[in-house]
């Protein structure tokens, strides 16, 4: 029974990882770049929520109303003012600029908020749980996280599949030049994609901050877990991302149960195993492009 519980916790943790992974996957899908500042920007969102809670007296969930639009605006600005200038200059500039951004965000957070660890207090819900019979119980908060992740993935699926913005996303993803010829304004589209990505990342960062403590240095791990969830699930597959997050989450909780130091490492090792045994991921949509 304890093992069933461990797996269940890991599965729910996967919901959080899927949130991180979705933003990363969206950006790569639309413009073929990997945002190395992804994790640090999620931690920035968590710190913004801390500020909103402390200065405005908002609850942790209510802070989302401020943090999500703020991060979306930041994403739009970042893409329009910085990343769009790097279009057509090869793979190196976007990698280096987003990496530089990661280091800048991390060290700025260190200077402003010190190295102390923080946590967002949602007012009791983080400890409330629902019994599943027997000795099994799951926390309300992990359940809500998973539900939010599923809702965001479903919304994104709908947007990409049905709406004209989604059609434009798919078109530029398939062929940038032709999409441009068809009258799609790539630059503005990329701005919207980055805004959407950082809005999702903001939700992920705030949920992370409610679930566990975080510091200025928590970002890189978030990027790595997001990346691993994307690769395990299979590039270009939105629902695969959810499965990838769940596989990673289960690997980490089971590993940590065996030996406390082995949680994250087990996650990495399962990622490597999937990579070696099934390089296209569990749910690859198409030929591997990364």
């Amino acid at each position, binding site marked *: 029974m304890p093992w069933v519980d461990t797996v269940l916790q890991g599965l729910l943790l996967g919901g959080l990882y899927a949130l991180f992974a979705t933003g990363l996957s969206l950006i*790569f899908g639309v413009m*073929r*770049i*990997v945002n*190395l500042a992804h994790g640090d920007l999620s931690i920035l969102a968590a710190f913004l929520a801390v500020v909103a809670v402390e200065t405005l007296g908002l609850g942790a969930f209510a802070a989302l109303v401020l943090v999500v639009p703020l991060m979306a605006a930041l994403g739009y600005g970042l893409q329009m003012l*910085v990343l769009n*200038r*790097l279009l057509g*200059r090869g*793979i*190196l*500039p*976007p*990698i*280096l*600029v987003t*990496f*530089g*951004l990661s*280091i*800048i965000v991390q*060290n*700025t957070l*260190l*200077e402003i908020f010190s190295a102390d660890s923080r946590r967002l207090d949602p007012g009791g819900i983080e400890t409330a749980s629902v019994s599943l019979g027997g000795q099994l119980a799951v926390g309300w908060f992990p359940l809500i996280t998973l539900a939010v992740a599923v809702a965001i993935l479903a919304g994104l699926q709908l947007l990409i599949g049905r709406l004209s913005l989604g059609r434009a996303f798919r078109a530029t993803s398939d062929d940038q030049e032709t999409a441009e010829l068809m009258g799609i304004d790539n630059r503005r589209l990329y701005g919207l994609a980055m805004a959407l990505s950082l809005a999702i990342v903001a939700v992920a960062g705030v949920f992370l901050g409610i679930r566990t403590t975080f510091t200025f240095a928590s970002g*890189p*791990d978030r*990027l*790595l877990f997001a*990346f*691993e969830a994307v*690769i395990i699930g299979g590039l270009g597959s939105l629902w695969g991302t959810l499965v990838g997050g769940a596989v990673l989450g289960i690997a980490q909780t089971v590993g940590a149960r065996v*030996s406390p*130091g*082995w949680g*994250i*490492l087990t996650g*990495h*090792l399962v*990622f*490597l195993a999937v*990579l*070696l045994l099934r*390089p296209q991921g569990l749910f690859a949509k198409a030929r591997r492009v*990364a």
Partner: protein
Amino acid sequence: MVAALALAAAISLPAWGDASTMRILVEFIALLVLAQMWNLLAGYAGLVSIGQQAYVGLGGYALIVLADDFGANPFLAVPLAGLVTAALALPTAAIVFRFRGGYFAVGTWAIAEVYRLLIANTAALGRGSGRTLKAVFPLTRESREVTTYLLALAVGVAALVGVYLVLRSRHGLGLMAIRDSEPGSETLGIDVFRTKLAVYVAVAFGTGVTGALVYLNLLRISPDAAFSINWTAYPIFIAVIGGLGTLEGPLVGAALFFLVREGLSDHGAWYMILLGSLAVGVMLVYPHGLWGLVTSRWDVRLFPVQRRVRLDGGGADP
């Protein structure tokens, strides 16, 4: 001529300089070599790794295991540590070469974390608290410092000459062709995979030697410090600010890096924020870096690796 004078001054430094100057110079040389290695990997071979800290950490740990556990001479263990990291680079390449571009960058970072966590969970390597290099204890402090410094100088010169010779060779030309167009160079008969793998392993060797050198200088190693992302961030900032894809760029960048770091040493992490912003600014506005700015004004090349057509002689400058 300038280089010969600088080298003579550097070699004779132990006779007239003090220990702290030598320690700082060892650090300077280490960062310079790391920047040259990263530059060769990313600026020439197009393999943009964010995980080179893996080889710094592995080199440092290899030094301590070779010297303390296997009884090797600690100074001889520095190049040997490079061989260990080069050997580990082969299976690592089998994994990270599955990725391209941005995902290659994150993949190398993930692998560096795997190495860090494996070492942090190994009792024989001191787990999270790390180990101390004991093999140098019988030596006097002065002879250890002077030998370390001269070894660093030798590593620095060897790295510079090594990278220069690689770039001037046929393989160097192949490398730059790969960076510019992989399918194109493949059709010209360049074995893209083998060339990239050779560079990756050679850079792992150079990075591992430097890691060993760093910890011969510091004597104390821990997984968090040895596998810190800063071991990749510093070289990237140095190479990008100085000028990617040139040999002179990292020299200029390393000098600026030390100026900024020492100048802001009382202001916490601000030097990293400033250097990061400089690197981002350079990428946006002037991707050829400071050295590119110099060569666009004046026709100076300290290490000419370009091949230029000479109209008077009728042949190409090799």
